[in-house]
């Protein structure tokens, strides 16, 4: 459209950037007014020992209507699972059932205080025990803490339990082995837990190189951290040999549970020889990602590690009632209260709705959908590790770069113009120009076919008009951003002095 296009008045509402909420409204605007005091007022500076606030903070002056419009506009600039296909690899962007959003808001859940007597939270404790029991069955690991707030937090929790376990055996050990395909959280977690990282290369099939693993293992090694299925979407065929080798030197095996959506009801990490894993309730168990959180990262462990679980743990007593307990050698706690309880309610509703067979069917469909897309795309976008995949697969954009000078980033940005959220890109690091698709089981065949068709169309555009892709996206609320400027000239907050 041009500036003079009469169909679009100059004063039409913008789909693009909007004024900050601080720049909205007027000094007279009010929304919620505090009620009149029904007790005697107190001299604040006296009761607060001279610490009463002198200069008030600057907050927005807006009416409820202005708030509604501001956030409506912000929402309109966002893309969620409801907006369209969201095949973000390793993130499991499945549909978030609406019932779960309703039940977590029931007063009997939302209006509970964490220090209420256990007799008044029997339903909440029972829900947490029920969820923990289900996770234990699904993972084959009987000890469960729901407390960690996210996957990385779960990793940290488990590695600190490993430290406590090894320390109890007389030696905390020094190193943790991680394959080069691992998520960045794994090495970052290891550093936070006070261990050194030893990285090992993957083999030609994208799996753990057994020789490299054996060479890295000695009695200084506390653990191996492994994602299985791995970040290429491949199940490691040597998994039993791997965990046996780890155990042979007295180390423990940790499973990064990011990819659990591939194997529910099909195989269990506990049966593979893993000692601990985390579950991302916000991936596998359909709780919404919330634009970056809150999620939840429960940790499941073997019976041998269970005495080290953080507390407090909801427990079922012999008389069928519920209480709260601590384990003998608990590492302590990794956050306040029980964890992200509101997320547990949603996840438990999901488990109840699907049941055991439904969870297995969800994994089967997720794997089928990924293989379907992989087969249709691998002729156009090379598939460096060409094996049947689990719930996700990793293509390479290297051919488009070599032949047309088009990068994976360009393909991703062009997808936005077609109303599809890009897959995960440039991860894992072991694939050149990587494109990681995870369609999930909740995309219909029609959705899958459309994603395939669009990816093929974009490959054609790359050949015929590479600059079209270099400039994409065109139809989004804003276009490509100057990220270097954001770093060089940090503007991290609005200041009252910069007001209009």
């Amino acid at each position: 459209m041009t500036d003079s296009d009469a169909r679009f008045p100059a004063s039409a509402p913008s789909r693009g950037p909007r004024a900050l909420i601080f720049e909205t409204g007027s000094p007279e605007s009010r929304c919620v007014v505090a009620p009149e005091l029904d007790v005697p007022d107190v001299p604040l500076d006296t009761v607060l020992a001279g610490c009463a606030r002198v200069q008030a903070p600057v907050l927005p002056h807006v009416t409820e209507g202005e708030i509604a419009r501001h956030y409506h506009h912000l929402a309109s600039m966002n893309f969620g699972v409801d907006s369209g296909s969201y095949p973000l690899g390793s993130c499991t962007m499945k549909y978030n059932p609406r019932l779960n959003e309703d039940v977590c808001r029931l007063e009997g859940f939302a209006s509970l205080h964490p220090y209420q007597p256990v007799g008044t939270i029997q339903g909440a404790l029972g829900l947490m025990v029920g969820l923990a029991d289900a996770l234990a069955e699904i993972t084959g690991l009987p000890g469960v803490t729901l407390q960690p707030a996210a996957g990385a937090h779960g990793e940290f929790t488990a590695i600190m339990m490993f430290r406590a376990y090894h320390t109890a055996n007389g030696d905390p050990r020094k190193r943790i082995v991680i394959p080069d395909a691992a998520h960045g959280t794994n090495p970052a977690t290891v550093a936070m837990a006070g261990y050194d990282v030893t990285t090992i290369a993957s083999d030609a099939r994208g799996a753990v190189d057994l020789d490299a693993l054996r060479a890295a293992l000695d009695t200084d090694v506390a653990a191996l951290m492994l994602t299985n299925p791995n970040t290429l979407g491949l199940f490691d065929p040597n998994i039993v040999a791997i965990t046996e080798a780890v155990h042979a030197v007295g180390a423990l095996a940790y499973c990064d549970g990011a990819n659990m959506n591939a194997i529910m009801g099909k195989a269990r990490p506990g049966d593979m020889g893993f000692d601990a894993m985390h579950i991302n309730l916000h991936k596998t168990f359909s709780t919404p990602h919330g634009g970056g959180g809150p999620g939840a990262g429960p940790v499941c462990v073997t019976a041998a590690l269970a005495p080290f679980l953080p507390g407090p743990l909801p427990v079922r007593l012999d008389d069928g009632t519920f209480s709260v307990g601590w384990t003998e050698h608990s590492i302590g706690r990794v956050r306040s209260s029980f964890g992200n309880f509101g997320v547990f309610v949603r996840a438990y509703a999901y488990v109840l709705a699907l049941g055991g067979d439904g969870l297995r069917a969800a994994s089967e469909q997720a794997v089928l959908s990924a293989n379907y897309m992989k087969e249709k795309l691998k002729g156009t976008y090379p598939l460096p590790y060409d094996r049947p995949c689990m719930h996700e697969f990793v293509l390479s954009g290297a051919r488009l770069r070599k032949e047309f000078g088009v990068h994976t980033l360009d393909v991703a940005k062009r997808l936005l113009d077609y109303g599809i959220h890009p897959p995960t890109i440039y991860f894992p690091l072991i694939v050149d120009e990587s494109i990681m698709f995870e369609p999930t089981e909740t995309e219909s065949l029609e959705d899958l076919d459309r994603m395939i068709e669009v990816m093929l169309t974009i490959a054609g555009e790359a050949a015929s008009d590479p600059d079209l892709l270099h400039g994409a996206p065109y139809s989004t609320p804003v276009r490509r951003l100057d990220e270097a400027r954001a770093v060089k000239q940090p503007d991290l907050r609005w200041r009252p002095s910069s007001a209009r």
Partner: protein
Amino acid sequence: MLRAVGATEIDELFDSVPEAVRLGRPLDLPDGLTEMETAFALRALADANTPTTALVSFAGAGCYDHYVPSIVDHVVRRPEFFTAYTPYQPEVSQGTLQNIYEFQTMICELTGMDVGNASMYDGATAFVEAALMASRVTKRHKVIVAGSVHPEWRVVLRTYAASGNIEVVTCPVADGVVPIAAAAALMDDSTAALLVSSPNFLGHLEDLAALGEVAHAAGALFVVSVNPILSGVLEPPSSFGADIVVGEGQPLGNPMSLGGPGLGFFACREAHLRQLPGRIVGRTVDVDGRGAFVLTMQTREQHIRRERATSNICSNHALNALAAAVYLSAVGVEGLAGVGRACVAKAHYLRDALLATGKFDAPYSAPFAHEFALRYKGDPAVMHSEMLGRGFLAGVDLGTIDPGMDGLVLFAVTEKRTRAEMDSFAGEVASL
């Protein structure tokens, strides 16, 4: 679809799973339920609880029952917000990103600090991240934590410190606050930070000005945790030399939800920006020159820096931060001050009323804001249970949290409590 992938059975797709580790049986879980059955099952569990909405609650201790304006949840329930991922694709994430930028601004305004991050898991983990950041900034190993900080937070700090990355020393408490001399005696040239909370766990205000001087005299950072609902009435920690300010943001527009999810907030001085943990959003421009927002300073983070990252954290509590930002927009500066003033005035009213019953002693004389501890002259567990039967959640029986605080009951009063409820509560306690 099976034909397209060259398979006849779904199980062929799982051929790479070794026979030895295939489950080979159905999961031992109940059959799936219809939506109606699921709704009824969850309703039954909810009904097996007694929510604070069915009680008159004086429970606080880190989780608070404030009024949440209706508009807050209407915004939070927009699927464009709650079904989105972390805003890695800024072109289609401007809603999440702009909100975080506005949230960062609000946190800076409340705390008086220069820069804030996009939020963290909760107050306790933000507190720990502050200790770890202070250690990185000062290249020192030891942190001094006030014994008046929330006991759960101190346990979390100790749990993280088992990594060996930091050493934690607890400063003793007298009259419910940190004695300046006691803090000063613990500081030395290996101290990275002095960490305090004000109001502290018992609701008391610490002498932040003096404690800040103690920290800085030793070359350590001064870390202060605050309750943001009081930011309209209490001077911000920046006025007392705080280097890092953290806290639990749940009181701002988030339901208690048994203690989670809430949000942690984290703010610091500009000089320490590059050591900040967590997500940060910055403002920049797009190729057409339009103002826009993006995740920035990412070279601090795990997906780039791996084991050399400032933290392993790769999420925030964006949806809870959204609730907090909408809350602060809805109440505005007068509303926030009004809520704070109401909480303080009502807490002082209740304390006087409870002392007048003759059933309590006042063990502390330190100034307090909206929460206070009294010693019950009988068995607090009996009192608590008896009052529950009469429809009151009689604060938090501190002996159940820490045997060292046996006999103490911690009362919090929010703007939701009325004079009639407090009079009724005091009357019922008097009749025990």
